[in-house]
């Protein structure tokens, strides 16, 4: 923050310096006190004035912070608790109530209406994970996907006539109730 105020101050000084120099070059200034009586090019007065301007600026540079504090924003009065409360408890800052939560009809866990039930999906994911492990064992290496359909059979199931040319993945457990064909 102090660097920012010093930077702004130095920018202001440099801008003023540029302005005065432009005025000198154009020859429109006549209020400079140490100007020479010679009516010629204004190079000499420039060399004289530079150390003077630096001397003027140096004493100003260190209390730059004190000088800039005078034009910084600050609260005028203490905000009362009533004002604070109305700001903190405004409609847009409160947490919105969701009305789209309902229990899943299968497992009873809560779910949002447009999103699948987390529990049921985790159940399905676990089973598909085991099926994919079995497929990985059957393929025996990467990039060996066979160009045939796959069918999954559980314990005690035989392939029907539809599952003729398909690759059979066997799962050594009873068919789960939620996995009817």
């Amino acid at each position: 923050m102090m660097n920012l105020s010093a930077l702004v101050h130095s920018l202001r000084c440099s801008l003023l310096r540029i302005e005065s120099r432009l005025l000198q070059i154009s020859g429109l200034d006549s209020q400079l006190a140490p100007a020479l009586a010679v009516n010629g090019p204004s190079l000499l007065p420039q060399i004289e004035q530079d150390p003077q301007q630096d001397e003027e600026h140096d004493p100003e540079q260190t209390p730059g912070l004190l000088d800039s504090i005078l034009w910084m924003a600050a609260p005028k009065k203490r905000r009362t608790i009533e004002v604070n409360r109305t700001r903190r408890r405004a409609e847009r800052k409160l947490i919105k109530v969701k009305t789209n939560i309902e229990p899943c009809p299968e497992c009873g866990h809560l779910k949002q209406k447009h999103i699948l039930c987390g529990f049921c999906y985790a159940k399905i994911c676990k089973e598909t994970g085991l099926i994919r492990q079995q497929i990985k064992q059957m393929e025996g290496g990467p990039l060996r996907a066979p160009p045939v359909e796959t069918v999954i059979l559980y314990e005690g199931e035989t392939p029907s006539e539809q599952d003729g040319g398909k690759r059979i993945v066997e799962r050594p457990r009873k068919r789960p109730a939620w996995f009817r064909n």
Partner: protein
Amino acid sequence: MRLTLQMLISHGRVARRIGLGPESRINMLRNILTGLVRHERIETTRVRADEVRFYAEKLIDYAKKGDTDEKAMKMASFWLTEKDLVPKLFKVLAPRFENHSTGYTRMARIPNRENLDRAQMAVLEYKGNPFPPLYPVKKENELTLINQLLKGYREERARARVLGAEA
């Protein structure tokens, strides 16, 4: 004379910007599509799944033209980075969707990712995949009270109709 700020306002723009640029977007979607063709059911962010869906269905449309078609083979070899999936696409997925005209994929939203980013996730699958269904089929339970009462009522009405027909 254009009076609007083209760069700053994007009202009505439907094209999504994904990844580091258009090329990066296509590469990312290509990877996701390859994964989808290999595994037939994948889980990604909702936006990526939505973008891939269009390309997945267009790929099936190209595959339906048959593997002798030059354009179809070029498209398949571009979009599938793993070349053992090209025969799978033409011999498994294209015949599976012979009788469907559109809608080869299904997208369903799942609860947000558990990481710090809590990203919105979705599951994208080709229909007819061998895995357990995402939406379990609801069967009517005959043994509920209401169903038993309705069954009794239907039987009584049938009996009354038979008696009425006899008399």
